[in-house]
């Protein structure tokens, strides 16, 4: 009986006009496109400078900022109100104002206690972009001031030096892509294994074929497990093709063992597929199932520490995150990929994932009635 049901599911999967193509496309998108789009390094900050000093020093500092690579200098204007207007119109992100007396300050003609005659204004509609932009701008200005003062014989050399060396572990170049790729794989598996089985069962409901199954002696478990098997195969295909692609394209390997990746992936597939089946048991048509799964997928992704760190969420959001299977899968996958974590480090994630999966699977089987 199992043989025939599995044959049916695989044939239907392969004959579907969309899914096989999507399965092949997804790894390319995940590895070659999405990491660049989900990059949170801030670049191309649109900057306008107001030069009220018109000195050689002010020109040099503007040059320094322009060449730092983070800014795109839109214009150099003479009046602060003109710059403000540009920001109000949303054309620029930041204004650097160099006030009169800047050259004198650098050359040490004023007491060192005086404030630096430089102003920074940042558009913080996008808070992250604004605050990081202002930090970059600050860093540019202070490094220029330090070096210029040093050259012109300032007091820099006399202050005691504290030498701080930073060592970055696990992702030495702070490469955002390397951090995001495991999480993007997590998202892909979630989407694939959440949506497709749910839509599959609902479409059997809509076509009435599920009734024909319910009137046969097929057991509930056989029917549901045979529905899940093709998606397990698809999910493994996606994980390994993503890993292969990211190694080919960026040279990223997986620091941990592939067996651990397999174990966690299986646990997550069971969680998502049973969740999808659970939703389909309570849905009468595809729209309804789509909407419910979409709602949960959004919540799962945003409250999982994938895009934003869990630690900075408020307490209530953390509680939501602890009920979210993605939290554990993403945490484990990042650990395994970047740090080479083993089961000894990630067993807590596995226990939680299996716990959630067990609950949803049981619920899915109990809520599926052949007779109602």
């Amino acid at each position: 009986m199992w043989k025939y049901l599995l044959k049916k599911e695989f044939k239907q999967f392969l004959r579907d006009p969309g899914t096989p193509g999507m399965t092949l496309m997804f790894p390319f998108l995940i590895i070659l496109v999405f990491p660049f789009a989900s990059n949170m390094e801030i670049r191309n900050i649109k900057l306008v400078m107001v030069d009220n000093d018109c000195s050689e020093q002010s020109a040099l500092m503007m040059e320094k900022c322009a060449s730092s690579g983070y800014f795109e200098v839109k214009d150099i204007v003479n009046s602060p109100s003109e710059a403000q207007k540009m920001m109000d119109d949303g054309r620029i992100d930041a204004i650097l104002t160099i006030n009169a007396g800047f050259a004198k300050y650098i050359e040490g003609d004023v007491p060192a206690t005086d404030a630096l005659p430089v102003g920074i204004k940042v558009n913080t509609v996008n808070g992250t972009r604004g605050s990081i932009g202002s930090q970059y701008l600050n860093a540019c200005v202070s490094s220029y001031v330090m070096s210029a003062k040093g050259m012109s014989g300032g007091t820099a050399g006399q202050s005691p030096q504290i030498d701080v060396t930073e060592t970055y572990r696990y992702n030495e170049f702070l490469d955002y892509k390397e951090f995001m790729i495991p999480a993007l794989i997590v998202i892909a598996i979630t989407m694939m294994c959440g949506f497709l089985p749910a839509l599959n069962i609902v479409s059997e409901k809509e076509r009435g074929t599920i009734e024909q199954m319910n009137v046969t002696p097929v057991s509930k478990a056989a029917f549901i497990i045979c529905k899940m098997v093709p998606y397990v195969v698809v999910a493994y295909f996606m994980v390994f093709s993503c890993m292969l692609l990211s190694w080919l394209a960026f040279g990223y390997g997986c620091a941990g063992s592939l067996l651990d990746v397999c174990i966690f992936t299986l646990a997550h597939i069971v969680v998502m597929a049973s969740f999808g089946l659970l939703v389909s048991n309570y849905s009468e048509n595809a729209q309804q199932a789509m909407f419910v799964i979409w709602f949960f997928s959004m919540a799962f992704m945003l409250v999982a520490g994938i895009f934003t760190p869990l630690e900075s969420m408020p307490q209530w959001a953390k509680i939501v995150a602890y009920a979210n299977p993605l939290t554990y899968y993403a945490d484990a996958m990042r650990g395994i990929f970047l740090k080479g974590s083993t089961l000894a480090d990630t067993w807590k994630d596995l226990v939680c994932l299996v716990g959630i999966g067990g609950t949803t699977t049981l619920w899915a089987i109990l809520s599926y009635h052949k007779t109602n």
Partner: protein
Amino acid sequence: MVNTGEKTVVIRNLVKKFGDFTAVDNISFDVSKGEIFGFLGANGAGKTTAMRILCCLSHPTSGEGTVAGLDILTEQEKIKKRIGYMSQKFSLYPDLKVWENIELFGGIYGLTDKQIAQKTESMLKALSMENTRDMFVRDMPLGWKQKLAFSIAMVHDPQIVFLDEPTGGVDPVTRRNFWELIYEAASKGVTVFVTTHYMDEAEYCDRVSVMVDGRIEALGSPAELKKQYNASDMDGVFTKIAGRAERE
């Protein structure tokens, strides 16, 4: 081939309620082995609901009964091995080919690969559909689909086959062919339980029951009913009985 001594369906005081709505209101009847039992009634009279209970797709609210000698309340999964069902909605897999559908349902009922191969051959031959073997079911005309669905419902040689409006929307010639299949099955001792809206088909049944508002208002052979209601054909019988309906 009606064997009145052997009852394959025995139903007593069957009730099905959906909230306040009583879809099936205390019905009782027997069906004998090899009998073609017609189930008539206006739309919404409760025919499909009653049939779904007999097929174990639905739990009755109260009442009892046996199908193929097994209890409809407790032995549902066993009953499912012994019955065939063809629903109102066409329900073969449209994205599977003809032979693949036969293989799937044969396999589900526990036939071996060899038996499935034999069944496929004999079934397609009997339907004169040898050339459609590799056709996707979705590409077939409705009449062919219905004949195939009937044959697949019979793939495991069930004792009883339940047909819910099997000929809806089918042309007269194909309908005739379809009834030939039904007669053939009945002659082999299979009990056929069929709902229909076509009164000419009602004439082909050994006995018919007419449901009105969830109750069985009339039950008997077509000849008996025509006499009882003083009508020249089943159409007249049906109009007289169904006209009593109070609910929409």
